[in-house]
C-alpha cells in the first residue's frame, strides 16, 4: 500500500464522528472611520500612510516629498532604481509589465511601487496579488503600495468574502515593513524584506 | 439550612484554625453545620500524580460520609474542583453523580447560595489576595486575566465587605504560586522559584498578609515567606471573614 493510502486509511479510521461546520462569526468589529483605523494600525506596525487625491496625488507626493525624505532618512546618495508594475507610473519608474525574466535581476531595486486590491482596517493588511514578479514586494529595499480609499474594509472576514476564492497564482497580505524581534524582543525594521512601507490611500 | 463541612486532609492536620473559622463563619451566618466524622481526603494528591485509579477508596469514603446532604462546603477550591470533576464510583454511581453539583467552595457558597451582602468582620491590615488557579480558572471564582470578559471576583467581593482592610493590587493578578501538589517536590527548582516570585509581588506592594481561598497555595507561600524570615504572614480568607478584631 502506498504511503498516501496508508495515511488516508489511518486517518479515516481514527477521525471522530461527524461534527457540523460552524458558521463564521457574525458580530464582528467595524469602525466608524475605517481609514482612520487603517492609518492608526499601519503606523503601529511601522508603516507610513499618506492620503492623496488620486494617482496624480501619489506622483506629486513621491516627487516632492517621498524620495527626498527617503534619501535623508536612509542616507542614500546613489541613483535610485525605482520599479513599478503600474503602467500609470511610467514617468516615474522602470516598468515591469511581464513576468518573463529572472527575478534575481531585481536584487538591486531600491523602491517598488505596486497596487493593492484592498486594505483591512483592523490590522492595516493590504492584499497584493501576484503582478508579473512574485518576489518584487519582498526583494525591494522600500515598498510603496497604492490603495483606493473605497477599497479599505473593516476586517478580515470582509476581505475574504469580497475576494472569494480568487484565481490568483499567488497573493499576499502585507502589513508594514519587514521586521523581526528575535534578538531580545527588540523590534528591528527591515529583516529580509523592505525596510519601509509607504501606503498611499487614494480618494 | 444545613451544610456538611468537608475539611481537606492537610487542613485537618496542619491548619485546623481554617476549618474552625469556616465552621464558625457559617454558623454566624445562620447555617447549621455538620462535620461528618471519619472523612479524609478528596483523592486529588493521587489523581494529579497520575494515580486516579487509586482514588476509589477515597471516593467511597467521601460518598459514605457526604451522601444525602444538599450542600457540601469546603474551604479549598482545589479539592472542590477535583470532586466536582472526578468523584466517581462503580458501586455507588448515582450517589457520586448526585454529590458532584452539591459541592461548593466556601466563598462561592457565601456569594452565590447565601448571597451574603454584608459581614461583621474587621481586619485592619494591608492584604494581598492570591487567586488560586483551581478555584479561579477551574471553579471560576474570579474572572481570569487571559479572557476578554467582564471582571468579577467572588472572594474579592467578600473581602470588600471587611472593615478597615486594605487590598493591594498585584503586578500579576493571577499567576500560579507553583505548589501544584506533588509538583512542589517533583519539580522542586521551578516550584520554589514560582513561590518566591509570587510572594515577591505581594511584598513589593507591602502586603502584611497574603490571603486566598485555598490553603495549599498559602501553605506553599508560607514556606517561602518563613524561609526568607519575612514578617508577612499567610491567612485563609475564612479567617479574615470570621475575624472581629
Amino acid at each position: 500500500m502506498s504511503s498516501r493510502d496508508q495515511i488516508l486509511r489511518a486517518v479515516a479510521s481514527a477521525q471522530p464522528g461527524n461534527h457540523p461546520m460552524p458558521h463564521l462569526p457574525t458580530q464582528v468589529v467595524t469602525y466608524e472611520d475605517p481609514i482612520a483605523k487603517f492609518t492608526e494600525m499601519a503606523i503601529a506596525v511601522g508603516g507610513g500612510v499618506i492620503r492623496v487625491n488620486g494617482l496624480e496625488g501619489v506622483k506629486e507626493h513621491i516627487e516632492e516629498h517621498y524620495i527626498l525624505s527617503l534619501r535623508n532618512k536612509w542616507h542614500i546618495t546613489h541613483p535610485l532604481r525605482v520599479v513599478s508594475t503600474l503602467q500609470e507610473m511610467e514617468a516615474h519608474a522602470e516598468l515591469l509589465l511581464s513576468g518573463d525574466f529572472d527575478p534575481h535581476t531585481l536584487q538591486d531595486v531600491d523602491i517598488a511601487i505596486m497596487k493593492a486590491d484592498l486594505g483591512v482596517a483592523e490590522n492595516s493588511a493590504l492584499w497584493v496579488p501576484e503582478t508579473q514578479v512574485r518576489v518584487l514586494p519582498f526583494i525591494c529595499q522600500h515598498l510603496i503600495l497604492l490603495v483606493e480609499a473605497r477599497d479599505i474594509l473593516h476586517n478580515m472576514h470582509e476581505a475574504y468574502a469580497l475576494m472569494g476564492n480568487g484565481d490568483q497564482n499567488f497573493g499576499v497580505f502585507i502589513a508594514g515593513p519587514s521586521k523581526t524581534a528575535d534578538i531580545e524582543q527588540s523590534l528591528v525594521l527591515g529583516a529580509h524584506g523592505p525596510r519601509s512601507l509607504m501606503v498611499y490611500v487614494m480618494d | 439550612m444545613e451544610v456538611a463541612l468537608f475539611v481537606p486532609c492537610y487542613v485537618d492536620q496542619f491548619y485546623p484554625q481554617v476549618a474552625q473559622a469556616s465552621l464558625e463563619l457559617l454558623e454566624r451566618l445562620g447555617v447549621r453545620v455538620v462535620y461528618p466524622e471519619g472523612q479524609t481526603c478528596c483523592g486529588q494528591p493521587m489523581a494529579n500524580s497520575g494515580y486516579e485509579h487509586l482514588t476509589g477508596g477515597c471516593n467511597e469514603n467521601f460518598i459514605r460520609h457526604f451522601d444525602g446532604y444538599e450542600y457540601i462546603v469546603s474551604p479549598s477550591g482545589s479539592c472542590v474542583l477535583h470532586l466536582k470533576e472526578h468523584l466517581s464510583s462503580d458501586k455507588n454511581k448515582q450517589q457520586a453523580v448526585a454529590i458532584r453539583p452539591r459541592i461548593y467552595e466556601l466563598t462561592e457558597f457565601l456569594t452565590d447560595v447565601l448571597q451574603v451582602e454584608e459581614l461583621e468582620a474587621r481586619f485592619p491590615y494591608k492584604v494581598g489576595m492570591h487567586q488560586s488557579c483551581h478555584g479561579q480558572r477551574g471553579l471560576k471564582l474570579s474572572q481570569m486575566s487571559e479572557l476578554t470578559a467582564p471582571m468579577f471576583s467572588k472572594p474579592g467581593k467578600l473581602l470588600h465587605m471587611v472593615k478597615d482592610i486594605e487590598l493591594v493590587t498585584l503586578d500579576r493578578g493571577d499567576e500560579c504560586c507553583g505548589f501544584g501538589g506533588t509538583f512542589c517536590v517533583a519539580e522542586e527548582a521551578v516550584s520554589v522559584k514560582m513561590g518566591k516570585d509570587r510572594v515577591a509581588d505581594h511584598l513589593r506592594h507591602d502586603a502584611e498578609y497574603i490571603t486566598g481561598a485555598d490553603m495549599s497555595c498559602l501553605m506553599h507561600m508560607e514556606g517561602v515567606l518563613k524561609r526568607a524570615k519575612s514578617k508577612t504572614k499567610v491567612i485563609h480568607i475564612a479567617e479574615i471573614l470570621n475575624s472581629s478584631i
Partner: protein
Amino acid sequence: MRGTSKRHADLADVFNADEARVDWHDETLWFVRTKRDRATHGLEEWESLREVASEVKHHTLANLSTYLEEFEQQAIANGVQVHWATDAAEHNEIVCHLLQKHGIDRMVKSKSMLTEECHLNDYLADRGIEVIDSDLGERIVQLAKEMPSHIVLPCIHKKKEEIGDLFHEHLGTEAGESDPQILTETARQHLRDTFLTRRAALTGVNFAVAETGEMVVCTNEGNADMGAHLSSIHIASMGIEKLIPKRAHLGVFLRLLTRSATGQPITTYSSHFKRPREGQEMHIVLVDNGRSRQLAREDFRNSLKCIRCGACMNTCPVYRRSGGHSYHYAISGPIGSILAPNLDMKDFADLPFASTLCGSCSNVCPVKIDIHNQLYKWRQELVKAGYTDKKKTAAMKLMAATLSSPAKFKLAGKLGRLTLRYIPFAVNNGLNPWYKGREMPSPPKQSFGEWYASRKKEGEG
C-alpha cells in the same frame, strides 16, 4: 544527574542555577503575554472567534481524510506536486531525493517546526546537503548548534551579547557588538546572499485550504517569500492537521494567530501560494508522523487543533522559569508536553508532569485546546503504562490506603503530623525537596477532627 539527564525537572534545575537569568527569561516572555492581552482584550468578539476556530478545527478533524483528498486534488490541479510521508524518515527521504534529483547540495529553509520534529537538517547534512535557516532566530540557534527553545521565538533564551559573540565568530561582526539593529542588519546581508544563491527553498505551512489547494505561510521577516520566490524548486512541508476546509476560514485563523502569538494584529506577510511560478517546481509533503495515532486517541485528539502560536508557552509559569530546552522536544511548553508523548511515551513520560495544571494555557489557546486537562489525562495514561518511577507508585499506594481509611488516617495523624507519609514533604531534613527552598508548616496541637470531637463533647457535657 546534572548535565546528563534528559528529565524536565533536572534540566529545569540546571536552568535555575542562574536566578537572574530566570528572572530575565520570565519577564521577557511575560512581556509577550501582556502584548497578547492588549491585542485580544480590545476585540469584543475574541472569545467567540476562539470558539468558531475550535469548531472549525473539530469539524476538519472529523472529516480529515476527505479534506486531505480534496486538498490533494486541488493542489495537483494547480500544478503542485503532492507527496505523502507516513513518518519523519520518509519525509526526510522525499526532501533529500528531490534535491538530489536536481543536483542541489545547498538549500535555504524558513521556519518549519515539522522539519525540527523530523530532524531534517541533520539528515541532509549527513548526505552532504547544507541547509541554512533563514528566520533570524532560527539562524541564531543554528549557528549556536542548538534547538529552537520556542516555536515562535526560537532564540528567546539567548542574550544579545551571546548572539553578538556568535555573529563575531561566524559573520565577522566587531567583537563585543550586541546592538540588535546592527546584528539584524548583518544577518540581512548574509542571508540576502543566501537567498540569491540557493536554487531550492523549503518552507513550513501555517494553513492549507482544502477547497482551493493553496497554502498560507506567515512570517514577519519575509524570509519564506525571499527563499521561495527566488528558488527554482519550492518544497513545503506540512503536518496533515494544518488543513482548513475553506478559504473564508483564513479570516478567522489569521485574526487569531498573531494576536495570540506576539500581540500583533497580523503578521507582516501572509502569503497565499497556489500555483508555482512560471518555470518553478512546487512540492508539498504531507506528513503524518504520529498524527493519525493522536487523532485516534480520543482524549488527546484536540491537540491536533494547534495552530502553533506559542501563546501557551508565553503564559506558562513553568515554561517561563525552566526554558524551552528543558522540554527536550522540538515543540516545548504545554502543547509540546501533549504532543511529545504521542511520539514516544517512554522518552517523554516526564513532560506531562512539568505543569502545575494552573490552566492558563487553555485560556490563552486560540483554538481552545483543553491543554491542562490533557496533561492530567496523559499522567493517568503514563502511569498505567508503567512509565513512571516504581518508588513513586509504592508511595502512592500507601498514601491511597491511608486516605481511604478513616482509622488509618487518624492513626497516621496521631503518629506525628510532620511525618504523614502522604504529604509530599515527609521529613524535615536536607534530603527533602520541600525543605530545600521552603520551611515546613508548624504542627498544631490538635487536628480539626480532634478539636471538633472535643467541642462536641463539651456541648454534650
